[in-house]
């Protein structure tokens, strides 16, 4: 007996991107009611002026549906042809079921395979790696990848180290077969030895016992050190693995954790002046897994970046985990 193996497309690419930005604008002055800080300090340390939080009637489902609907429409692919849905999130607060099957149902995607992944701020790039592998192996023809986050729900408004960092939002892409390669090899990894550098204040049981919802905590300097050393090297490796030089890059979309980290990565990479660098952090804050697709959509919509250009994406965060690859913009 010989078992049949699946066969897929030789290459994959991102066909389209969509995003959703919630309605409530939260500026630094608003947050400084709850923490001993100032607009100047927050701006100088992070580059963040304001962020968006979910308002009335908005939640992770509505944001994800808006982003995904936009991505599907722009892809030109019939919804029924999408046969796998991956949702990357750390802010879906149900142990089970996953968010993906419900979103697949709400989007009218029939019996598409659907599951969630948890890789925090690296989650979008982890998802791109998985989707690319599914398409190339033939396990799926078209994959919808959604990154949705409402970190405002787990933000400690009185923590002067993290209260101002996070914003809510969602981004989505459709990934499918291609005649030319549009997704370079993934460079990814983890350092669980630093599991406590970004973590929750309690696990669920501990939160119930303490009578408070778990919130996110962070050792900012440990993360900054890791990002400015390890991630800088990983970013260079993304280019090497894709076989391109910095001169051949058009767009750089690093995870928007902190403008100072982006500045450091740029100093290390010595990218040419012409490279467009995402700086959505100023108005959106850090959107965890949703950051990169939201920034990608913003750059394409504003015209700063163009379809067909070569972009480097890299995410890094709680785990600690990181992941990046060079892609062709949809």
């Amino acid at each position, binding site marked *: 007996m010989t078992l049949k193996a699946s066969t897929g497309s030789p290459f994959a690419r991102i066909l389209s991107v969509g995003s959703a930005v919630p309605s409530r604008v939260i500026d630094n002055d608003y947050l400084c009611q709850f923490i001993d800080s100032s607009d100047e300090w927050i701006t100088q*340390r992070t580059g963040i002026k304001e962020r968006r939080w979910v308002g009335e009637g908005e939640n992770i489902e509505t944001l994800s549906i808006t982003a995904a609907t936009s991505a599907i429409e722009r892809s030109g692919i019939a919804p029924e042809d999408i046969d796998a849905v991956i949702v990357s999130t750390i802010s879906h607060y149900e142990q089970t079921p996953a968010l993906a099957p419900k979103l697949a149902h709400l989007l009218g995607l029939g019996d598409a395979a659907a599951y969630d992944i948890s890789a925090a701020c690296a989650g979008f790039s982890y998802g791109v790696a998985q989707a690319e592998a599914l398409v190339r192996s033939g396990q799926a023809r078209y994959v919808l990848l959604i990154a949705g986050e409402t970190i405002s729900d787990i933000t400690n408004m009185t923590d002067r180290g993290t209260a101002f960092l996070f914003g809510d939002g969602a981004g989505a892409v459709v990934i499918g077969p291609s005649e030319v390669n549009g997704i370079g090899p993934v460079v990814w990894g983890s350092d669980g030895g630093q599991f406590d550098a970004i973590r929750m204040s309690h696990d669920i049981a501990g939160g119930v016992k303490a009578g408070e919802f778990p919130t996110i905590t962070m050792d*900012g300097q*440990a993360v900054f050190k890791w990002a*400015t050393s390890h991630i800088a090297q990983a970013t260079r490796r993304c280019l090497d693995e894709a076989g391109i030089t910095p001169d051949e890059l058009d767009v750089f979309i690093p995870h928007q954790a902190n403008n100072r980290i982006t500045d450091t990565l740029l100093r290390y990479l010595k990218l040419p002046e012409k490279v467009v660098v995402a700086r959505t952090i100023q108005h959106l804050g850090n959107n965890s897994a949703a950051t990169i697709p939201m920034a990608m959509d913003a750059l394409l919509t504003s015209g700063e970046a163009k379809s067909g250009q070569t972009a480097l994406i890299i995410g890094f965060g709680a785990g600690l985990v990181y992941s990046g690859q060079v892609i062709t913009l949809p």
Partner: protein
Amino acid sequence: MATTEEIRAQLAELVNEVAGVPVEDVQLDKSFVDDLDVDSLAMVEILVGCEEKFGVTIPDEESKNLKTVGDAVAYVEAHS
């Protein structure tokens, strides 16, 4: 083996690149925080830069003791 002055000069370039402090201000007796106005994130970046530039490892508990330019230069001299 680099001399104290060579290490100081290379460190001064690094501090200039990271924090915009004029290279001539980066002297051995200067405190990073109090004299050169280097903030905590820039300090982390300078120490990471030192690790790369001079091939040394600076553990977290050690980094807290490197308050002046002279402290950092002495550390590099002793460990490179």
